[in-house]
């Protein structure tokens, strides 16, 4: 048996409580992604060993869900709300404005990994439509910026692209002036 690499050992320790045939796969994948930001091939192999699944089965399940990623995430993600209340107030224009500003497709990120945009599903805070969430990985920030329009969305995207932190964006400094 090959020597366990340090990272494999760490992942194994992280998911040691999960058992095969016990409905633990989602929880194990969430645990790893919360810690590392994404599911690496190595992580999926370790999860498979822990839960007595082939790595392909783990990947098959993971790739089915919107939430799991296989590449490191951006430092900050703009989560664009795709719900109807937002859509009724130019949500589509807001999406296109952010994509054009960042020059990335939906679920993509800038080359430097600073900022990405991801499709978001309605969470029922429609009193603030149209909205995006700002998700910052390092601080586990996840906050709504509501009552947007396309111009404000561009300002947010530009600020994040140019190095602003989630905190600065959420303080709405970038929207003033």
């Amino acid at each position, binding site marked *: 048996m090959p020597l366990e690499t340090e990272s494999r050992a760490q992942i194994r320790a992280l998911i040691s409580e999960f058992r095969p045939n016990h409905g633990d796969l989602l929880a194990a994948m969430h645990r790893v992604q919360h810690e590392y930001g994404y599911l690496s091939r190595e992580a999926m192999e370790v999860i498979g060993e822990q839960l007595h699944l082939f790595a392909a089965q783990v990947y098959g399940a993971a790739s089915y869900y919107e939430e799991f990623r296989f590449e490191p995430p951006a430092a900050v993600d703009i989560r664009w709300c795709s719900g109807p209340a937002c859509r009724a107030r130019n949500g589509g224009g807001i999406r296109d404005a952010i994509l054009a500003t960042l020059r990335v497709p939906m679920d993509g990120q800038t080359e430097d990994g600073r900022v990405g945009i991801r499709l978001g599903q309605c969470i029922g805070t429609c*009193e603030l439509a149209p909205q995006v969430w700002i998700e910052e990985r390092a601080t586990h920030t996840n906050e709504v910026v509501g009552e947007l329009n396309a*111009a404000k969305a561009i300002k947010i995207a530009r600020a994040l692209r140019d190095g602003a932190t989630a905190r600065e964006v959420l303080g709405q400094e970038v929207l003033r002036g």
Partner: protein
Amino acid sequence: MVSANPTGTPLERYEALKAPAEAAYAAWRAPERARIDVAIDTSSLANGAKATRAAIAARIAETNATVDLGQNHGYGMQWLQPLVTITFPDGAAVVYGPVKAEQAAAIVDIATGRTPATSTLAIGTVAGTREGIPSLRDHPFFALEPKTGRRLIHRLGLTDPENMQHYLGTGGYHAAARMLDRHQSPAQVRQELIDSALGGRGGGNFPAGTKWNFLATAPGDEHYVICNADEGDPGAWVNRVIMEGDPHLLIEGVLIAAYATGSKGGFIYVRDEYPLAIARLEAAVREAEAAGLLGDGVLGTSMNFELRVIRGAGAYVCGEETGLINSIQDGRGMPRVKPPFPAGSGVFFKPSNVNNVETYANAPMVVEHGAQWYLEYGTERMRGTRLFSFSGDIQRVGFMEIPFGVPLAGVIEACGGMLPGQQLKAIQSGGPLGSMLPAREVPNLSMENAPFSALDALMGGGGIVFLGDQVCTIHMAEMFTQFVEEESCGRCTTCHGGNQRQTEIIRRTIAGDGRHEDRHNLALIDRTLQFSNCVHGQFSPKIVRNTLRFFSDEYERHSAGRTCDALECEGLIRFRVTNQSDPRLAEAQDICPTAAVIGGPGARSVDDALCIRCGACTDVAPNALVREAKPATPRMVAIG
């Protein structure tokens, strides 16, 4: 933390839990000194409740105010979030909102008695009275709620959802304890449910008691109860409200179902987008276990029941029960052909029962008060009350608990009508697999399934979105076609292929390239999709079908007429500079993300080929540019 009593009958053990809880809750409701409860729920947090709470805490510390700080769940008026409740020593409780961080000082002053309770921020009292402040129950938003008070969500705003003592202290778990004390056999519980006519709240309205009978009579002794909390319909957040606002109510409901169906295990499958609901449920499950209400030997009986919270990962179709079951058991959450139904083969291929959050949450009421009490509200076909969330272009966005059958017109009135300057154009209900109905049908609609079904529509799981006349229904239909396409699991060719084609046609129409044969082809896709194996495929063409039927003129204007009157559809509109001397025009040029505003001062114009129609330019310079219909261009005619 509430801990278990080691001896006694189930009811004695329950009473031992309840007595201290009741005292604690009474003290909370009539505190020695005033307490400020900031609503902490998904809506309030989005509106800045954390900053509000921090500012209030800072103000209390800074002024040495003799005031406590707590939390509750919002009352339903989301347009007034962040909501804050002040409970005075005499037990009177006043709700204020919106309380932003800047109003923290004013709120603390009211709580200390330095300034009177009447304030421009005061909305109403939820307990006791205060001169000059109306009862919150008299607020027009709640005009349709039961006159005798809320039933399902009666604790919201009046308890701390993270405090189990508040649940116990308000009669929680009594129904379960009495039942376990051999007051009712499993069969009697199921019969009570059947007598109450409680229907499945996911939208189907299938009698819950009958469904429980299927599981109870299934072979083997390894049965499971599963709660579908994968509330994925955009615009619906009623399950979230129950899970965040009263998590033990759902746990008690699932516990009752487990008893009634002989289940040893249970799962609550919550969508990933609800982290607060997941956290509160997980904590509540741990507390209930510690109190002996879950786990081995529930309240000292021979009943063992392990309840687990499963966090989904963003797959809409896991809201279909077989998809949800596959998702729990380590796999891709793909629906499968039924039968076998879950009662025959469910999670881990064992007999299972799947119900919606609200269905389970109604069970404690039915068991506690009996079927007759439950039948008091609702209609012949749909009994009881249900939660609805209302959003879109209305004045008051939020949720309420109303009896089935109230007229939709009354709902719109309770929501304060449409926003200024807007007329109702469409009613979107039932989520992406639901429907879109025109405003002219409002007089024919009431809040139950039948009038919606009569129009080939679906009332659905509780979310209703009111769309104003600035919305293009074709543009809105595209949102839903894209949604159902992306969320198709891919098993049925009809569904994954059909929905791609459906989206392509709607997109092409939006791009200004509608074709004469599209209507025929959309109908063909619709018919083909009916051969899909699950409701996702079968219901996915419904919104387009509704649009073609009820907004036929608007569709034809797009397809044949190349015109979007709402000025939304990208291929049918353009932006044009109308005022070269407007100083904001330079700002518009700067904000444009594609540099489509070209030229120097006095000679700026929009390059139509670069313009993506995002509208940022008119956001910053509404008087310098205009969004207008694109003049018709000569069309290429295919030959041969």
